[in-house]
C-alpha cells in the first residue's frame, strides 16, 4: 500500500533522513521506533507532503505522490494525526471534527459518522460545543484521532500518540488504535514508547539519526539484545 524507497530529506543544512526504505501492506500496523531527534516526525511529515525531498520516492497504492500538495495527499486517503495532538484549540470540538471531514462532500454520512464518534467517546459528545483547548490531554488525543479518521483514510499516520499521557490513558489510546486497525484502516505508527508499540504492531523499523538500523516483526525485535537494552530497559 505504501512504499518508501531510499528517501533522503534535508532541512536547512542538516541531513535528517538518510536513505529510508519501508513498505506497508494493506491492513497492517507498522511501527517506526526510535529516540528523540532520529527523524521520525520529519519522516511522517514527508509522507504527508509538508516536508519536501529531493532524493527517493514515495508510492501510495502504486502512485508516486512526490510534489503533491498535502491537501491532495489527504484526498488520496492518507490521514495524519500530528505530534502533540495539535487540535485547533480555539475551535469547538465539533468544529475540529468538521475540519477533519473537510474533504468530504456529503453531509448525511458525516452526521452519521460524527454521531458514531460521540457514541464511541461520550465525553466528546458532551463537550462538542466546548473549545478543544479546554479538553484534557487524553481527550485531545481522542479528538485528534477521531478527527483524522473523519477523512475516511485508507492509511492513518499516527505521530507519538502516547506523548504526554498518563500510563492508563496510553493503554486506552493503544486499544483504540488496535480497534481502528481491526476496522480495516492500515496504520503507520511513530513511537518512542517501544514497550507499548511492540504489543500492537505487525512489524517495526528502528530509526536512529536518519537511518533504519533494525527492522523486523515484534517478536524478532523483542528478542533482539540491543532493543531490549536500549528501548525496553531490560538489563542483560
Amino acid at each position: 500500500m505504501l512504499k518508501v524507497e531510499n528517501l533522503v530529506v534535508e532541512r536547512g543544512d542538516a541531513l535528517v533522513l538518510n536513505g529510508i526504505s519501508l513498505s506497508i501492506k494493506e491492513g497492517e500496523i507498522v511501527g517506526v521506533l526510535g529516540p528523540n531527534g532520529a527523524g521520525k516526525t520529519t519522516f511522517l511529515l514527508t509522507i504527508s507532503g509538508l516536508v519536501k525531498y529531493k532524493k527517493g520516492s514515495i508510492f501510495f497504492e502504486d502512485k508516486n505522490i512526490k510534489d503533491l500538495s498535502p491537501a491532495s495527499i489527504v484526498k488520496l486517503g492518507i490521514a495524519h494525526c500530528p505530534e502533540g495532538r495539535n487540535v485547533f484549540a480555539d475551535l469547538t470540538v465539533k468544529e475540529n471534527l468538521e475540519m477533519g471531514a473537510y474533504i468530504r462532500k456529503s453531509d448525511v454520512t458525516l452526521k452519521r459518522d460524527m454521531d458514531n464518534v460521540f457514541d464511541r467517546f461520550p465525553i466528546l459528545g458532551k463537550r462538542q460545543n466546548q473549545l478543544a483547548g479546554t479538553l484534557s490531554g487524553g481527550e485531545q488525543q481522542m479528538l485528534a484521532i477521531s478527527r483524522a479518521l473523519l477523512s475516511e483514510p485508507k492509511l492513518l499516520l499516527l505521530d507519538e500518540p502516547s506523548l504526554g499521557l498518563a500510563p492508563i490513558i496510553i493503554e486506552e489510546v493503544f486499544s483504540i488504535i488496535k480497534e481502528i486497525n481491526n476496522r480495516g484502516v492500515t496504520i503507520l505508527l511513530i513511537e518512542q514508547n517501544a514497550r507499548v508499540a511492540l504489543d500492537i504492531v505487525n512489524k517495526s523499523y528502528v530509526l536512529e539519526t536518519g537511518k533504519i538500523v533494525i527492522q523486523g516483526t515484534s517478536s524478532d525485535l523483542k528478542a533482539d539484545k540491543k532493543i531490549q537494552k536500549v528501548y525496553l530497559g531490560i538489563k542483560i
Partner: protein
Amino acid sequence: MDNTSLSHFVQVTINGLSMGCVYALVAVGYGMVYGILNMINFAHGEIYMFGAYIAYSALVCKMGLFSSILLSLFFCGVLGVTVERLAYKPLREASRIAPALTAMAVALLIRSAVMIIWGSSPIMFPQVINNKPIILNNNIRFYPLQFSIIFVTIVIWVFSLWLFKYTKIGKAIRAVSQDRNTAWLMGIDADKIVSIVYLYGSILAAIAGFLIANYYILLFPLMGFLGTIRAWTAAVLGGIGKLSGAVIGGLLIGLVESFAMTYISTAYKDVIIFIVLIIILLVMPRGLLKGRGQKV
C-alpha cells in the same frame, strides 16, 4: 452644557461614528490578513486608497455608480491576491520581519504607481451620491451618506460574523489562522484559504475606500498610509484577530479623531491617533476583546 454645545457634541459624535465605520471596514480586513499569516500587512491601506482612485476614474469615464463600485472591488481583489501570491507567499517560512518589510515595499510601490497614474496632488472626487443633509432640530446635520456608511458597515459586520461562525469556509479560515500545517493535514488547501482571506480583506478595503472618497470628496496618495495607521490602531485596540474587536476599535478611533479635530486641533489629529496607539500597546497590548498577543 448649553443647547448649542450639546448639539455640537451630538454632531461630532455622528461624524466620528461615520468615519469610524470606514476605519472599522479597513480594520476588519486588516485583522483578517494579519491573523491568517501573522504578518503586519503595511500594504492593506494602499489597497483602500487604490480602490478609491479606481472608482474615481470609473466615475470620471461616466460609468454608472454600481459598475464603478464593482470595477473597484474587482481591481482591489485582484491586486490583494496578486500581492500575496507574488510578494508574501515566497516568504512563508522566512523570519517574521521579512514579510513585514516586503509589505512596506509593496505599499511604496502601489503608492508610487498611483502617483504616476493620477498625480501626487489631491484630486476632487465626483459627487455622485445625493448628500443633502437632513437638518434635525438644534441644527444637527445628518447626511444620507453617513447613514449609508453606517448601514453598509453593519451589514458587512453581521455577514462576516455569520461567515466565520457558521460556514465551512469560515471555519477553515479560523483553522488556518490557528495552525496552518495542521490545516493542511486536514486536506484544507491553506494557500487557497490565504488567497480567499486576501480577496475578502481587499474587497472590504475597496468598499471602505469608496465610502471615504464620497465622504471627503477628496483623494490623495497618502490616504492609504493614513488608513493603514488607523486600521492598525483600531485592530490593536479591539484585540487583534477579533472581528468585533476591529469594528469597536474602528468606531473608537473614528470618535477620537472627530473629537480631537473639533476640540483640540485638526492639525494634530494624526498625532493623537499615534498617541492612542502607543498608549494601547503600553497598557493593554491584547486590546479590549483580548485578542492574540504576546504569542511566542
